[in-house]
């Protein structure tokens, strides 16, 4: 209960930071650690995917972007999806149906990521942004009410994209995060080494699958606690009555010896 409250507060803080432009400050140099459109009238941070496409178009080797992304990845990996990303929070709000993840489909977010890069390079245009549901909510709709956007083909495409993704979210918990989010794809590369990580005390795990039932990403946390798909939301932790799962903010141990085996193992102490 306490962890859940902390996470909600953290997500609220993410939303607060995402919309910090209400204070009147302009665009900063900060790259946002989640999917958040920089075109949003209240945004003060830079969308990593939008920036990435522009840098590809401009042919800039993105040292600054790499520094930021690696920093976020090392700090929390996909923890930002579960604890910070406003669009992840929207996914959470529509998480009615926690179906099992289709593992083969979970790699499609990498295809989206590669497609985003290739289309930016090939067409010298931010193609992903034109389809991004976050941009639909944070840019198209606000600018429509500001009188700058109109009901035209790009607007309709945005609304269709948003509608499809919202429907997907309602049918499958964290649908966007599971299968489509390119930012999730980037952060997932760091998931197994990030400081924020899920720990399993296998000696306490009874493989009861209680954690599986609540996992919004459709994982089996007691078996896949270091999965690249895990958003480290901690729902499995609060559900596990045996305390087998926990979150750590420290660098992963062991630092200098062989890492822990994956999955539930029998308690060797008997």
């Amino acid at each position, binding site marked *: 209960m306490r962890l859940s409250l902390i996470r909600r507060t953290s997500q609220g803080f993410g939303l607060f930071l995402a919309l910090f432009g209400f204070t009147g400050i302009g665009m900063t140099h900060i790259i946002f650690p989640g999917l958040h459109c920089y075109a949003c009238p209240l945004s003060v941070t830079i969308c990593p995917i939008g920036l990435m496409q522009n840098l590809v178009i401009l042919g800039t*080797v993105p040292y*600054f972007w790499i520094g930021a992304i690696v920093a976020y990845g090392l700090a929390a990996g996909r923890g930002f999806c579960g604890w910070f990303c406003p669009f992840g929070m929207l996914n959470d709000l529509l998480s009615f149906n926690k179906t099992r993840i289709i593992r083969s489909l979970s790699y499609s977010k990498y295809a989206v990521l590669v497609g985003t890069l290739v289309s930016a390079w090939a067409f010298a*245009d*931010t193609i992903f*942004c034109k389809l991004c549901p976050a941009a639909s909510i944070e840019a198209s709709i606000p600018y429509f009410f500001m009188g700058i956007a*109109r009901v035209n083909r790009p607007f309709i495409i945005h609304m269709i994209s948003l509608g499809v993704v919202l429907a997907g979210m309602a049918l499958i918990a964290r649908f966007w995060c599971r299968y489509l989010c390119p930012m999730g794809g980037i952060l997932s590369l760091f998931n197994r*080494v990030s400081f924020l990580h899920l720990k399993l005390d296998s000696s306490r795990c009874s493989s009861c699958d209680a954690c599986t039932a609540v996992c919004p990403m459709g994982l089996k946390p007691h078996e896949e606690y270091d999965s690249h798909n895990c958003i480290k939301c901690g729902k499995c932790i609060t559900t596990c009555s045996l305390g087998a799962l926990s979150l750590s903010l420290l660098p992963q141990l062991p630092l200098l010896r062989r890492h822990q085996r994956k999955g539930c193992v029998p308690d060797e102490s008997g």
Partner: protein
Amino acid sequence: MMWRSALVSSVLILVFSVVVIASTGNLEYVGSILDLTTSYYSQVVWLSYDPIPGLTEPTYSGTPAYASVTLAERSFALALDRDGDSGKLYVDADGSKALARVDWIQQLWDGSYMGSVSFQLPASDGNSTRAYRLALVWTPATPMVITYFRDNRQEGQIELGGVTYRIAIIDENSDGMFDDLDHDLLLIDIDQDSELLASSDSHERYWLDAPFNIDGTVYSATSVSRNGSRIVIDKSDRWVETNAPLTVGSPAPHFSVVDADGERLSLSSLQGKIIVLDFWASWCAPCLYELPYVEAIANDYADRGVVVIGIDSDRSEGAFRSAVSYFGLTYRQVFDGVDGKISSLYRVSGIPMTYLIDRDGIIRGKGLRGDDLKQAVASSLASVGAADAAMSQEAILSFTVSPAEIALSPASTTLLQLSIDNVSIHPADDIAVTLVEAEGFSLDPAEADLEVLQPFSKGMLELRLTSSPDVPIGTDEIALQVIYTYCIDISCLQIVDEVPVTVVVGRSGGTTTTKRELPAWLVMSIVGGLVGVGVALWRLTGAHLPLYIALCTVIVAGFVYGVILGQHEQAQGIAAVLCTSCVGIDEVRGEAPPLSDSAISALAGLEKSIDLIVFYAPWCRTCPYAESMVREMAERTDLLSYSFVNVDTNRELAESNGVIRSKRTIVPAIVRVDTGDIIFGIEDLEARLLKVLAGES
């Protein structure tokens, strides 16, 4: 009464609109066209031995054959009194049924006879007549055929867009009527050189039903009187490009195509060379006859900077390739096909056709064959000089050299950056930068290239300037030469710019500090290697520490080096400016379409001067649309002026004009300066812009 008044009103409006908008020219008959450089379409009549009844005939010395020519829907009889290879021609030119002998001359080269006859056609009043001259030709080789073609024109003047042009109309199908617009020709002295050029590839010759472009305005003839004494020309809805002149002394239209070997071929890439364009086809016997001459030129002069390009008009590429192989042609070939792009660009109406283009891209000869062509190439090789027909144009690329003043010592090298900004609506290709010959200085490498610079985008070239040991001490002015190709569709221009550079040569230690980026491949290799080693150790030993060290190094190095390079500012700049197409508020569009008639009318009705500012970002893909529309509107009226402002470099002006919303600069934005009205984006731009101009916004 209602319908009657409506009818009268409609007629009055129609008449008024014609009087106000269209231009009318009154033309007079000129009984010869031979003083114009022209080609012609001949008509044919077949002779028959059957007499035409009712004719008053002379006494023939041979066997007469008869025919009739129809002019202005009236028949005029003629008879040929043939005696072997000679013949006398008799014509009923005035319609009186009396045949009168025509004095004609025997052509020397093929034994044919030609004479000019002035027919009397009924005038529009039905009572009088008007003259109409035809040239009639008879060739003994085809004794039962008389060919004829028009030998007259109607000529006068017309005012278009405030400029008076000399014009002529030609009854090209020789039927005595000038009002069949799809068969008759209009000549208009577009270049105001007092000469009407009527050749088939002329830029001053148009079919009467075809639109033509003068200084960006498209016109077409809307009506011509039957006798050709009156023509009405109006602005047209259809858009056509201006026809470039193809006369000797004009710049050769540039093209960029893929040749038969699959390589890109553009005239611009042949800068400084003498070019021979040979239009040919495998089915064209005279073309094949010319091939050995052309091949010889290609071989003999290849090492002297002569490039020969064969442009083939075969119906199939197979036929073209077979012919190239069969005749052993070694020079560059392009398969252009029937009505191909290059043939159309050069308005080639008959082959063989050759163009000789000098080192400056100027046409120095056309239609040359055999030894004449070879001789002309040799003459061109002997003459060196700049083009005498430089084309004036607005700036396309702007240049900034950093640092503005370069300091170096003798026998040293320094780095300078040439920033290139494409401020036009079309891309600039094949940008090559060299140093204009300057004693004591050289570039290393001697040439720097940029493949393409998109509209309203920036590029940067790093150049290493080296001074020789004996370079004089002091301040020197040198120049960089920038050569690039600027294409609009297939039509390309090669443009040469010079960028002045100030160099200060000191006695020692002249140092210029220019921020230099490490090679990307080196940096990324180090990063990749570092992370790769970390990952490998982690996977092999399970130890996280090496990977943490590697990733932390990447983080620190990425941030620090990125900040040094100003990438944090770049990122902020990208995010702080909202291009309306980038997140899907507008569609990406290129250049704006031609203005609608209502827009043109509305612009003509402007009563006061209006200044517009178009705010753009160099990378914004909708901005060219807004810019071209404003530019086109300004071309329609002298009361509209505009300026383009790059928001990346002039944020203060954008802020003071209200283009920044929610701390975000939105482009494209068009601001009417006197009222402060702003238009964002390009959706329905023409209508919104007209509203702002009308003060309705």
